[in-house]
């Protein structure tokens, strides 16, 4: 009792209280009396089983608290990290006195030594993840886009289109004369090209200047884009660019890539991103964030097809420049893409130098057809 005088309060209060101890060897509770010996860092928790006369000494600085107990009816302590023995103090008063005497007992399982190891493994995992997302998945997406069964691609495209119309509140525009104009324009920009599936062009009523390609041979033209164009050739140029995406199956591989990416990312961050997956995916298709290489391929396709159809490739540049001057629409898709493509401007200038200005020369639609196309969404 000599030492405990240094903690007279605690000794007095604890002397009446008993704890239940598990020695980590036998599955049996022992009733032990407890007292705190010494002070500060060197304090020790002494326990004594009066029946067996056995004594147990736990250094206080190594004590660990068992956290997240379902009911706050006992204080459960371990002598140190990794030990199997436990002390259960059910007496609220004794528990509070102990916590007052030893205020900061860390929780069991809080092992700061593990963090460097976690950091190294984490860095390796991050590299693996980057390899999956930026090398493996895009490669596989490009390869499988060529071999995806046509029904599957159609289904993918239809789902994406339905989501687009639902999300953006867009409605499809139809008129016999307008459809005929669209067909005529499509025929002009697909001359001599073998697409893997029939082209389907949707004209939708939407105030945003935009156009994009979807899987399953679909191209969506916004009414605002048609209205913003001054000549039919400008619309044809945008259409040719989007058909280029269809020809190279960019949207299909982008969809496969996004699906796989979101699957992997969802696994990494837990399932809870799953619900935002569809939102994000549709969004990335509408804003048509294709890679630079994909855009260049689509440009080259457009350039080749417009030239083949006797239309000026510079129409695309004209439209873009006017939109930029008006300060509208550049934020989206096809428009944004030109602002980051110096080589395209260079090519446009080259074709202009060759005397192929868009204002001059034949137009892809006659006046009546052009009027019908512009009236489709009225």
């Amino acid at each position, binding site marked *: 009792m000599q030492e405990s005088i240094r903690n007279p309060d605690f000794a007095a209060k604890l002397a009446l209280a008993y704890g239940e101890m*598990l*020695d*980590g*060897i*036998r*599955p*049996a*509770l022992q009733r032990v009396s407890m007292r705190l010996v010494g002070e500060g860092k060197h304090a020790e928790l002494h326990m004594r089983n009066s029946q067996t006369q056995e004594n147990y000494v736990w250094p206080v600085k190594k004590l660990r608290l*068992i*956290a*997240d*107990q*379902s*009911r706050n*009816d006992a204080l*459960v302590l371990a002598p140190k990290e990794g030990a*199997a*023995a*436990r002390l*259960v103090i059910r007496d609220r008063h004794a528990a509070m006195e102990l916590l007052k005497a030893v205020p900061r007992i860390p929780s069991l*399982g809080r*092992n700061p030594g*593990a963090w460097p*190891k*976690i950091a190294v*493994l*984490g860095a*390796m*995992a991050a590299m*693996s*993840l980057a*390899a*999956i997302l930026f090398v*493996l*998945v895009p*490669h*596989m997406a490009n*390869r*499988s886009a*060529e*071999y995806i*069964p046509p029904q599957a691609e159609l289904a993918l495209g239809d789902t994406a289109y339905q989501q687009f119309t639902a*999300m*953006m*509140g867009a409605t499809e525009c139809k008129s016999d004369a307008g459809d005929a104009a669209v067909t005529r324009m499509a025929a002009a920009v697909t001359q001599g090209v073998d697409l893997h599936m029939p082209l389907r062009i949707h004209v939708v009523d939407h105030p945003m200047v935009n156009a994009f390609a979807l899987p399953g041979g679909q191209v969506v033209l916004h009414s605002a884009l048609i209205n913003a164009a001054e000549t039919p050739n400008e619309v044809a140029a945008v259409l040719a660019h989007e058909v280029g995406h269809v020809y190279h199956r960019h949207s299909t591989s982008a969809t496969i890539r996004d699906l796989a990416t979101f699957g*992997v990312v969802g*696994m*990494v*961050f*837990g*399932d*809870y*991103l*799953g*619900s*935002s997956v569809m*939102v*994000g995916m549709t*969004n990335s298709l509408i804003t048509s964030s294709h890679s630079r290489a994909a855009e260049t391929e689509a440009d080259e396709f457009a350039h080749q097809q417009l030239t083949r159809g006797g239309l000026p490739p510079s129409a695309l540049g004209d439209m873009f420049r006017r939109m930029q001057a008006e300060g509208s629409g550049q934020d989206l898709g096809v428009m944004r893409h030109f602002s980051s493509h110096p080589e395209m401007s260079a090519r446009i200038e080259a074709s202009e130098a060759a005397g192929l200005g868009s204002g001059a020369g034949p137009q892809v639609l006659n006046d009546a057809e052009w009027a019908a196309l512009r009236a489709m969404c009225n």
Partner: protein
Amino acid sequence: MSALKTDFAGEKGDMFALALKTGLLTVLTLGLYRFWAKTRLRRWYWSAVRPGGMGLEYLGTAHEKIMGFFVAIIALAIYIAVFNLVALEVTVEVMHGGISPQTLILAAIPLLGFPVFFMARYRTRHYILSRTTWLGVRFGMDPGAWGYAWRSCMYWLLTILTLGLFWPLKTYQLEKYLTDRSWYGTAQFKQHGHPFMLYGLAVPFLALIAAVLYVSYEVGRIMLADTQTLEELVYVSWLSLSYFLLVPLIIIAGIYFRVASIRAMACRKELGDGMKFEFNPKTRKLLRIRFFGIWLTSFLLSFVSSIVLGLLAGVMILLGYEVDASLIYNTPPGIAILAGLLSGLLTFILWTVFWHAFVTFPSARHMAETLVIEEPALLRGIRQKQEERRSRTGLLSEALDVGGAF
């Protein structure tokens, strides 16, 4: 000493608070906290289950979970690089042949997942047991994942091929395989009983399967004949209607069999030399908890997106924007994406919280309260087993959440 009854010491409100807190932290840390969340929720449940008044303890740590998870990502990268890429290239090569063997190969890939799934199941059990203690003594499990995997594959195949005839045998043999390799301290568990003892419990299920087969045979016999009389057509339509009754009944009979077989086998387990158990969860009660829990969870979650949109509208009004009905009928894309993201996150948090409060918690409580340990005096003969090298095998499956009930 008399038999030890089991208490479940925990309140639904406390579980709700813990699940909500850890769920919020998980979202705020972009999912990183979920290893801690899972650890903490398990510690809570384990400490609530108290045979003889003393709670279990869960020793698993968030650190080992996060490390297992990182290893799983690295393994996934290697797996995709080596396996999927090769499979894809092979598919592409074969495709040039003409037909569509690609579908065959794609269909075969998931099959390779089955042994892995069963191994993961064994190792999850191994992991959980080796990190559970009661009265300061650890549970444990011998290695045996490969044996479990091929047995599972075989019994599953037989069960599917015989339309369920092997199900009771499969259930018994696989549970026996797991039980006979489990330990509490130095005492080993043993599964007694007979391989065919579960057939009695499966009678309703098998009878209903037979009924479906009979109905299908009758329908097929009549409809495939060249002509049908009016009476036959009426008979066939009555038979077809019976599907609507038979199929839900089969599901219920299947659930009954699962719970009843767990009950029957638990009562024939022995620990060491003579410790026995009673475990009597009620099918009806578990079904009621689950149906009610699913209904309540979905009902409450159905309000999430409208509440989020409403809150966003409120914020916009506070910021001085004009808000009218077009916000709902013609939502601007920016708002739609924001509302979608917020609803997704909130739905995730609340789903976990409600699921714990309305399904996991009541099920765990019911099951715990039906557990009785007989002859607890025999605990005196049990000692802590020498600590095996802490198995990390289960961590991979743990990280990918295979078969984790909690």
